[in-house]
């Protein structure tokens, strides 16, 4: 009975309203207030507590509100009401077009092809980054081979404890097959991951400045590697050094390669946007590169574990090559073969 009474009162208010625009408002007010309540609940994170009716009604109420807003803008001078409608329209727009992928669903799509697809999308930049990294290693090697003082300029102090030019073979072998501090491996792995992840993020983030800092960072890091390679090569330990490096390096260097490529991709798109505007090109490239970067962080977790545990626990060069090679094969297969058929099928489905 009460609702009938209020209905009657509302009906009366609509009839007695002097202005057409007030009548317009009074007729639709109830829908707006319902939408407002739904949106307020969703904003407070109580989406699950909404009734099925409300969830189903949301898109309809939202579109009705947009049409109310369009009409009100052209026919009403009630500034308070229009302000309210503007605000509510924006709030419900964010709910209807909000981030609807749940984390779980995004995660599944990411591993189930989104990541490898993103990596394949920046293939050209991966080639550029690979070229830069190889060049960096060669530069480092050549510099130190020419004048061993370069070593101290390239390698920061904490790496260069015993691994210096002129160190004895035994000392160098000790750094490759050391069995000391096996107990602190967990901390070491976590530290390495955190450290490497920041370097990789840096390599990507610097790409923003037209990719030049990314390239310089890659060259610098690889020159360090080249310089160390020379030190070990002088004592005939090249094979052992590469084995020591490959167990985690195939994963870690691959991750840094991808991070650098992602940075170059963004920088290249900003510098040469093609037919798109600079801003659109930057944001398209940025989103693609962000997917690659999310994967890079995961690869670096693997690399940190391999570096912290496997490298110290496996002391046989052959086994080290085996683990490193297996990891490399795994990543290559995952990126360049996995999910490809699905993507192709989707593309052909779209074109036909």
């Amino acid at each position, binding site marked *: 009975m009460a609702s009938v009474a209020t209905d009657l009162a509302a009906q009366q208010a609509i009839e007695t309203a002097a202005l*057409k625009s*007030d009548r317009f408002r009074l007729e639709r007010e109830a829908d707006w207030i319902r939408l407002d309540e739904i949106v307020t609940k969703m904003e407070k994170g109580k989406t699950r507590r909404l009734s099925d009716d409300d969830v189903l009604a949301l898109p309809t109420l939202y*579109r009705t509100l947009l049409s109310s807003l369009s009409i009100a803008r052209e026919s009403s001078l009630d500034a308070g009401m229009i302000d309210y409608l503007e605000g509510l*329209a924006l709030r419900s727009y964010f709910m209807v077009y*909000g981030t609807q992928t749940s984390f779980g669903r995004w995660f599944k799509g990411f591993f189930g092809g989104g990541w490898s697809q993103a990596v394949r999308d920046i293939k050209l930049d991966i080639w550029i980054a690979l070229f830069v990294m190889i060049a960096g290693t060669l530069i480092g090697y050549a510099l130190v081979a020419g004048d061993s003082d370069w070593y101290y300029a390239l390698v920061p102090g904490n790496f260069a404890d015993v691994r210096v030019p002129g160190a004895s073979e035994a000392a160098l072998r000790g750094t490759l097959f050391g069995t000391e501090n096996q107990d*602190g491996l967990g901390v070491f792995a976590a530290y390495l*991951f955190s450290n490497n992840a920041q370097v990789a993020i840096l390599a990507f983030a610097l790409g*923003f400045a037209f990719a030049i800092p990314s390239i310089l960072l890659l060259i610098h890091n690889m020159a360090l590697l080249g310089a160390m390679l020379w030190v070990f090569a002088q004592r005939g330990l090249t094979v052992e050094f590469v084995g020591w490096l490959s167990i985690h390096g195939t994963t870690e260097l691959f991750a840094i390669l991808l991070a650098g490529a992602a940075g170059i991709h963004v920088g290249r798109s900003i510098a040469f946007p093609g037919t798109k505007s600079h801003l659109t090109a930057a944001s398209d490239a*940025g989103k693609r590169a962000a997917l690659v970067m999310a994967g890079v962080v995961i690869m670096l977790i693997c690399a940190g574990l391999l570096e912290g545990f496997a490298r110290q626990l496996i002391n046989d060069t052959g086994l080290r090559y085996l683990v490193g090679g297996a990891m490399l094969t795994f990543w290559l297969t995952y990126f360049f073969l996995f999910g490809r058929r699905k993507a192709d099928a989707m593309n052909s489905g779209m074109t036909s």
Partner: protein
Amino acid sequence: MSNAATEPWIRRSANPKLDRVMVSPEGVPLNVTVATAGARAGALTLDIIIIMGLILGVSLIGLLILWAFESAFGGGASLEQSGPLNVVAVLWIIAVFLFRNAYFLYFELGERAATWGKRAVGIRVAARDGGRLTAEAVIARNIIRDIELFLPLVFLSSGEASGNMTEFTAWAGFLWVLMFLLFPLFNKDRLRCGDLIAGTWVIQNVKRNLDGVVAPSSEVSIDPANGKETSRYEFSDADLAVYGEYELQTLESVLRTGTDEALLTVTSSICNKIGWEPGVGDERNFLEAYYTALRAKLERGMRFGKRRKDKFSADI
């Protein structure tokens, strides 16, 4: 959007330079206001304090666990290298990494697309093109945060600590920091580098309540003596020709929120303008009647596509 800027429904906010129009996927243009640089800085400061608090909290919990182990197994047990010290250290490093990188991701991917700091100052992240805010965009905008904020902090503190930075590198580093930090001030949409890469922007939240009808059925008032409906005030066309929309909406805000004193002032100035003798004690009814009559006239004009911006524009 340049031609839309002349549309009369464009909102006039406190700082019109920050007003923008975003077209929804339905094709309806929506008014948005870009968050001010001050609000952004405030939100960021709050977030940094919160992150530091979280890191401090985790460190304290770690120490507490260590202390509990030590008191349970006797001194020295935890100092063995394979002891709980390692586990706690690993957890601590991972937690700090997560706080530093995942805090922003987690909250900006949520329903409100805003961290705690952003919520506190009432701003949120949105896609610049009016589409959905995607996970990739949020990841992209937050990865860039590293060079804008954390890297400079680390750079400055490490350089200071080791004292091996020359004057020149210190200044070069400082300029680099400043360039990224102040980037939002150099573009009109207040985009930081991360926003640029991700195609996002940060806008102000709007939350308004629906006020009542301004003048509910004021044209007719019921005489309590005989119950007859009478129109107390009649306005001629000339009386209504003196004002436009701007004055109407000023009058609306006076009617919604004004004090008796304000009503009195407005009544006398309107009466002056239209050459009436201001009465006493019936200001609200008079103003409501005038408001309704003026609005009816202006809205009638709108229906024929004619609008009058303010009293200086031509009458319709």
